[in-house]
């Protein structure tokens, strides 16, 4: 490790705050805390591009809140007014089209980045001790984001909003025992109208801010346990880590700009890739669209839902595919974290990614004909990997030798 880094480390132990900064910091140590967590914070030196998505997700969340607040100021959550108020935002509100484009692109890319972030955790074993709570808060966040995305998609009150809501409320109603009560709590009346829309508008808004709170816990957890890294070997010496600033500030910045370019390209030039045109037709309870289909990020779960013959069974499978991830830290008992050193599991996990994509494709094709068989096989594989393969293989697998340290893995022993 080079000498300047060590200088920075020693300097940080006695922060020389004077004047107003010192006055504030003696009463509320926000300045020294920021310095400790975002400047001097030690991070493994070998993080790759997959570790960019945390910063990316934080920024997209900020963008969603900022654009969402201004959209909400111009939105009317009623059966008769919702669709036209969104049209007015796009057409008559100055800059409204840009605001809405940001919010829509943001929602899609938020989910995309979330799935990539989740995959990073799966691949490099970031869910293992001592990061179980980091993993669990992350999964809670994902569920909250999904619920928020669903509630948000209802708000324009187009055909897909209405009929998507119809499918989901009826699926909830199919839960034995409590189903009808739950359905009534969601809809608020015997039809999907003003009460339902108002409830989900408030839910969308409230969840968005709750997410910020859970993100706080998620980030706090990573600052306690430290980042995992591609080798999965914990840092042992100062040589294995670098300070967050400037090393990862400069690296995250490059990732953020690249992500912003994808964001801008989609938003300004290919918005149709993310838009379901049917949702520009106002909700019409009398006219069922030929093709009811959720947004792409829900398609894998939609595929699972449809591959099970019973409605309730489908709901269990779709919910179970997410819930099984909560048990992952205790299902996978291998002491080796990173899939780099677990050749067998690495192939198995790639299979999970393929199964996820097959399920999405099957959901797209309403699990009809050959897609039904494909969806069932993929669903079986998905659950088989987590519930059977991982617990068994972690006892018997032959792992590759681990490097003695992170620095050694980079030839800097």
């Amino acid at each position, binding site marked *: 490790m080079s000498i300047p880094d060590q200088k920075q480390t020693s300097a940080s132990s006695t922060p020389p705050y004077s004047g107003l900064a010192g006055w504030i910091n003696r009463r509320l140590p926000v300045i020294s805390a920021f310095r400790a967590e975002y400047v001097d914070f030690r991070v493994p030196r070998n993080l790759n591009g997959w570790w960019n998505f945390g910063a990316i997700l934080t920024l997209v969340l900020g963008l969603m809140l900022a654009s969402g607040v201004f959209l909400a100021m111009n939105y009317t959550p009623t059966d008769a007014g919702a669709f036209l108020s969104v049209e007015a935002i796009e057409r008559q509100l100055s800059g409204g089209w840009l605001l809405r484009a940001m919010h829509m692109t943001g929602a899609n890319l938020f989910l995309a980045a979330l799935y990539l972030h989740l995959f990073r955790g799966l691949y490099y074993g970031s869910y293992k001790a001592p990061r179980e709570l980091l993993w669990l808060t992350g999964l809670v966040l994902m569920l909250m984001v999904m619920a928020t995305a669903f509630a948000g998609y209802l708000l324009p009150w187009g055909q897909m909003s209405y009929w998507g809501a119809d499918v989901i409320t009826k699926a909830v109603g199919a839960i034995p025992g409590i189903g009808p009560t739950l359905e009534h709590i969601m809809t608020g009346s015997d039809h999907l109208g003003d009460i339902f829309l108002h409830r989900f508008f408030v839910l969308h808004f409230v969840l968005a801010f709750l997410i910020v709170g859970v993100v706080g816990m998620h980030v706090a957890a990573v600052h306690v346990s430290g980042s995992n890294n591609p080798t999965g070997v914990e840092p042992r010496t100062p040589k294995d880590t670098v300070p967050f600033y400037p090393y990862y500030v400069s690296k995250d910045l490059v990732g953020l*700009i690249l992500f912003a370019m994808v964001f801008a390209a989609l938003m300004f030039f290919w918005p149709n890739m993310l838009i379901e045109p049917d949702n520009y037709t106002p909700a019409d309870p009398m006219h069922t669209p030929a093709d009811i289909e959720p947004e792409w990020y829900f398609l894998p779960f939609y595929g699972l839902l449809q591959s099970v013959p019973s409605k309730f069974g489908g709901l269990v499978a779709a919910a179970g595919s997410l819930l099984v991830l909560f048990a992952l830290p205790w299902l996978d008992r291998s002491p080796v974290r990173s899939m780099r050193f677990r050749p067998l599991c690495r192939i198995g996990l790639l299979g999970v990614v393929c199964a996820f994509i097959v399920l999405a494709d099957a959901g797209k094709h309403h699990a009809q004909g050959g897609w039904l068989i494909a969806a069932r096989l993929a669903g079986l594989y998905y659950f088989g990997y987590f519930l059977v393969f991982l617990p068994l293989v972690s006892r018997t697998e032959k792992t590759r030798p681990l490097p003695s340290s992170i620095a050694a893995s980079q030839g800097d022993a």
Partner: protein
Amino acid sequence: MRKHVFAGSLLAAFTLAMPALASTPDKAPPHQKWSFEGATGTYDKASLQRGFLVYDHVCASCHGMRSLTYRDLEGIGLSDQAITDLAHSKQIAGPVGISGMPTMRPGLPDDHFRSPFPNDAAAAAVMGGVAPPDQSRLAAVHPGGADWLYAFLTGYRMPPPADAPVVPGKFYNDWAEGHMIGMPPPLMNGAIQYPDGTPATVEQQAKDITTFLVWAADPHRNERHHIGKGVLAYLAVLLVLAIAWKRKIWKNLKSHG
């Protein structure tokens, strides 16, 4: 190296899964050349204004476009005065009068386009059971978009082919669902006169009204493309600077590695 290939293929899988959204029509209408096509396309203002004329004189007698206000026509290049005059020429439902009866008043620029029928039920009752669809987002909603609109508007066959069934009150169109539609052929050669002297053939009118309907469904396309180019150029410069900074920082570490 291997991990990069792996990461790349995963990303590719994700991007492949995404465009699986657009629904495709059973048979694609023939492709026309449009000024607004592609990532750099912009609307032809003259065509938009001719297209509005067709809408106002032909389509608007049956189809509403209720999301638009007269002021939105600034987007096709109409002047403030022209918009005010246009709005004034329309009679809009006003407040309840002193006698308690509904009144009419001349339109204002911020009024929404006047609908030909008070509601969908009234429209359906007059139009043989089916309300003519609102045209605000028609070009975005209908499979095939602009190409379909053009093919449809030029696709009436009078007389119909010999083997087509004769249904009273229905017209034969190559591009209508089931080839039969209640809407009579809306465009006729020379039925309207363009002030710019362009010959108002059926094909020309179809092209202009299609351009106008695409604009109505996506009114900010020009602006979107323009801002997008600026944003991407800015980000590209920022990216070069960020990469240079990152390299400079990480060089310290690499030289020891």
